[in-house]
């Protein structure tokens, strides 16, 4: 067979040398003809990228295509087949030469690029192609050759190979895009490997069958040709099925709906429910711990053909707020459609109260009566939210000067415009305290506390409801440091913790009322064992300060040991419950941990099901009194405080 390979090389020497020459000459040509704005190295890289993405595929189709059609030609039959080498091996030697020539050309391009590809300068698609270049090139060589052999024509074979290439590569690219952007929903590596194996085996098998049908003129030709066609088409199946599986799984992916604006004065989300969305179907709904759900937006019925191949997730923004009668207000805003305001409950369904014409910015505000503020082109408008039907009564509360309007159109947010109004609204709300201008007293309703050095005279303080009533945490200056004072109802203020704490800023209330926060994070070294040895990671371990409902304070509580034991938990750590001295924390989107007040003592932990772990730091959890609502890869799950989870 070696002699045949040498012969084939000699036969195709001229076109190969021409192509190699073109590749080699394009480097100095790029240097000569570059524009001023591009450096020499960049110019050469651009030329080589052009080769890689356009020139080489055409070169491959030419070399492999002519090799294939020559192998099937009458001349080959007359001259070469009578040699004492099996006809299949003769065909393989021609293929081997085409493959070797391709490899040499690719190597030349790669070498001119300095043996490295500037991945960061490429678009996603080109980077994907660059990563899998060897596979795509091999596919094109094999298929151009085999199809040119089948059709006895290089042009027909090359075009057919290109068509099959696109059909196979497109869904592969799609699936890779998915995986890159979001989540590993299907075993992409398996599908890629399967496709590669099928392509290689399929092309060689088809070539074998075609050799028997055409060269040896065996009976049953039609059957052999049909089988070859099936073998050649087979590698397109795993990517398609993979993509279909991906789409099916993606349709289940559930994400929480995050608010547009993160404001310290924003009202808390309605307790006990989660506003969730399925980014790949467009469905948005409100769900409670029992699994009852009410639809905000139904599924998009038709997202178009391009969306089939490159499904683009669309995310909505929204907010929930509980109303005085226990129902839930829901505001939800989609990019291309008007925003909606609804009222209702997960169990009973949601009713549309208003469609908001300006769908960019609206949010709930607290006050004596909860309300909604909407930013429109010409200014800000406010409407109180009252239960019952009837349209909202909008009142203009502020103008939009030209400068601010421009900034607003650019989307850079302009909170200062409304700060005064919001603060004013907030100040009038129940459960809100105000710091006096001289920083000495804190007043709320009829109560008054003395807090030395209280900070924030301009910002109203939101109170927290504990067992004994509404308490206020007031940040104050304390010599060179800060301190947090507790102002309980009917009692004097006392210093609670060292450090700056402010409700809504770094102090939050868990669904059961436990107050927790931290203003420092310390670094913890973690040694992670991998198969390559141990790797040192460092984690951030917050120093928690906790105030239970019945008034017990725990300061400087750290989870170092737990963080060391549970690797891979990325994202925020939150306290979600306290009961009889046991504390429950969520670690990122990965674990629910139950520990005693001794952080080095025994603890239990449960892995959250199907959660999105790696890529995203934002919490996909919503805690309520009974457990955790988890927006996961396959829908919404609920886990209770003993780690029992079920899918809703």
């Amino acid at each position, binding site marked *: 067979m070696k002699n045949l390979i040498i*012969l084939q090389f000699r036969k195709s020497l001229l076109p190969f040398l021409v192509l190699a020459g073109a590749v080699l000459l394009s480097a100095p040509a790029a240097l000569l003809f570059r524009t001023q704005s591009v450096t020499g190295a960049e110019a050469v890289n651009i030329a080589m990228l052009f080769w890689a993405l356009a020139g080489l595929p055409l070169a491959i189709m030419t070399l492999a295509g002519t090799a294939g059609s020559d192998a099937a030609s009458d001349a080959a039959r007359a001259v070469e087949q*009578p040699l004492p080498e*099996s006809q299949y091996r003769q065909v393989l030697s021609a293929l081997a030469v085409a493959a070797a020539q391709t490899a040499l050309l690719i190597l030349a391009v790669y070498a001119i690029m300095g043996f490295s590809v500037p991945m960061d300068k490429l678009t996603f698609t080109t980077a994907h192609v660059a990563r899998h270049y060897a596979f795509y090139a091999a596919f094109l060589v094999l298929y151009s050759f085999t199809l040119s052999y089948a059709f006895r024509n290089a042009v027909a074979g090359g075009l057919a190979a290109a068509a099959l290439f696109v059909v196979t590569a497109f869904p592969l690219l799609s699936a890779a895009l998915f995986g890159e952007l979001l989540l590993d929903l299907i075993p992409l590596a398996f599908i890629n490997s399967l496709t590669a194996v099928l392509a290689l085996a399929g092309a060689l098998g088809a070539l074998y069958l075609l050799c028997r049908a055409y*060269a040896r003129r065996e009976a049953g030709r039609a059957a052999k040709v049909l089988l070859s066609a099936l073998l050649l088409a087979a590698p397109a199946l795993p990517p398609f099925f993979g993509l279909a599986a991906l789409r099916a799984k993606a349709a289940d992916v559930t994400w929480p709906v995050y608010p547009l604006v993160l404001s310290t004065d924003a009202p808390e989300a309605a307790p006990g429910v989660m506003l969730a969305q399925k980014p790949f179907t467009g469905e948005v709904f409100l769900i409670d711990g029992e699994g009852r759900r009410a639809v905000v937006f139904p599924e998009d019925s038709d997202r178009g053909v391009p969306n089939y191949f490159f499904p683009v997730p669309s995310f909505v923004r929204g907010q929930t707020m509980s109303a005085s009668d226990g129902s839930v207000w829901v505001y939800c805003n989609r990019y291309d459609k008007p925003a909606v305001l609804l009222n209702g409950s997960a169990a009973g369904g949601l009713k549309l109260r208003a469609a908001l014409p300006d769908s960019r910015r609206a949010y709930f505000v607290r006050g004596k009566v909860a309300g909604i503020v909407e930013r429109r082109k010409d200014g800000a408008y406010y409407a109180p939210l009252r239960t019952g039907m009837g349209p909202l009564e909008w009142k203009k509360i502020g103008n939009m000067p030209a400068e601010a309007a421009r900034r607003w159109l650019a989307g850079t947010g302009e909170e200062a415009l409304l700060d005064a109004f919001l603060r004013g609204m907030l100040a009038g709300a129940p459960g809100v305290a105000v710091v006096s201008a001289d920083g000495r007293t804190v007043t709320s309703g009829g109560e008054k506390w003395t807090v030395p050095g209280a900070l924030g005279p301009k910002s109203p303080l939101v109170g927290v409801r504990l067992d004994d009533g509404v308490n206020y945490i007031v940040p104050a200056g304390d010599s060179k440091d800060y301190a947090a004072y507790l102002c309980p109802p009917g009692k004097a203020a006392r210093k609670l913790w060292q450090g700056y704490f402010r409700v809504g800023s770094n102090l939050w209330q868990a669904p059961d009322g436990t107050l927790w926060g931290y203003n420092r994070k310390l670094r913890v070294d973690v040694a992670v064992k991998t198969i390559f040895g141990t790797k040192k990671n460092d984690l951030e371990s917050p120093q928690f300060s906790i105030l239970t409902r019945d008034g017990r304070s725990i300061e400087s509580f750290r989870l170092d040991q737990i963080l060391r034991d549970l690797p891979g938990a990325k994202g925020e750590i939150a306290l979600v419950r306290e009961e009889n001295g046991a504390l429950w924390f969520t670690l990122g989107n990965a674990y629910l941990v139950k520990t005693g007040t001794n952080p080095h003592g025994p603890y239990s932990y449960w892995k959250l099901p199907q959660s999105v772990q790696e890529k995203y730091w934002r919490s996909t959890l919503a805690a309520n009194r009974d457990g955790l609502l988890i927006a996961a890869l396959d829908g919404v799950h609920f886990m209770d405080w003993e780690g029992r989870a079920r899918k809703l």
Partner: protein
Amino acid sequence: MNDSILETKGLRKAFGPKEVLKGLDLSAERGEVIGILGRNGSGKTTLFSILLDLTAADGGSAEILGLRPDGSGRLRGLIGYVPEKPAFHGFMTALEVLEFRARFFKRWDMAKALDLCRKLELDQASRVSAMSKGNLAKLAWIAATAHNPELLLLDEPTSGLDYLVRDHILNGLIHELTEGGKTIIVANHRMGEMGGILDRVCVLRDGAIAASHAASFLAEEAFRATVRLESPVSLPAGVVALGGGSALRDFAVFGREKLERLKLDPAFAGAEISPLSLEDSFKVLLGE
């Protein structure tokens, strides 16, 4: 040493709806020279193709030199094949062709090949693309015999060649026979000058070997009987009507015995008996 060089039983091959070989039985012993006589398109080349393991038979069996055609190409290394239209790579010279082939055949004798070039007056440096038909035939002959195969398959080896080249080829054939041990199968649609070299003539007709005669039989025992017939007569076996006018008819008779018996037939009394030429014998066999 096994004396059966080649044996086929019931070979069948069809290309689509067209059946070319319909149960072909052929056998050859060591040292035999067999001529396969068949009209143009009768399947001679297909038969060779199957024997050379280039085309797969649809049915039947073949055993050549102890091997069966299995697609591996091994058989082609043991057979010397001169195709009807010899073809080589146009960019090679005669010497390059021979050197190229030498690498494929274990028993290649380069000295013999070069000697043949000289004897046949073939310029080693001449390029294939510029060769005349005669030179291509010479090169094909050298390529087929230089590796001393036990079996030679020649497809129309002399058709279209001038007298001198034909002479060279025939002399080469005789030389190979003189060396001893070679079996030669020649497929031709005109046996002509080969008559003296053949041991046996097989007639390929309707996809099978219709008749097989020793060459000496055809040379010595083929007669033409010219007779005047008053009324139509039934012909015994081995007697073929050749044509003629209404009353005067010609008949071919194969076999001395058959001739004697025919002479006893009253209808044939007074027939003029003359020998039937080899060419005419072939024509009769083909046309039957």
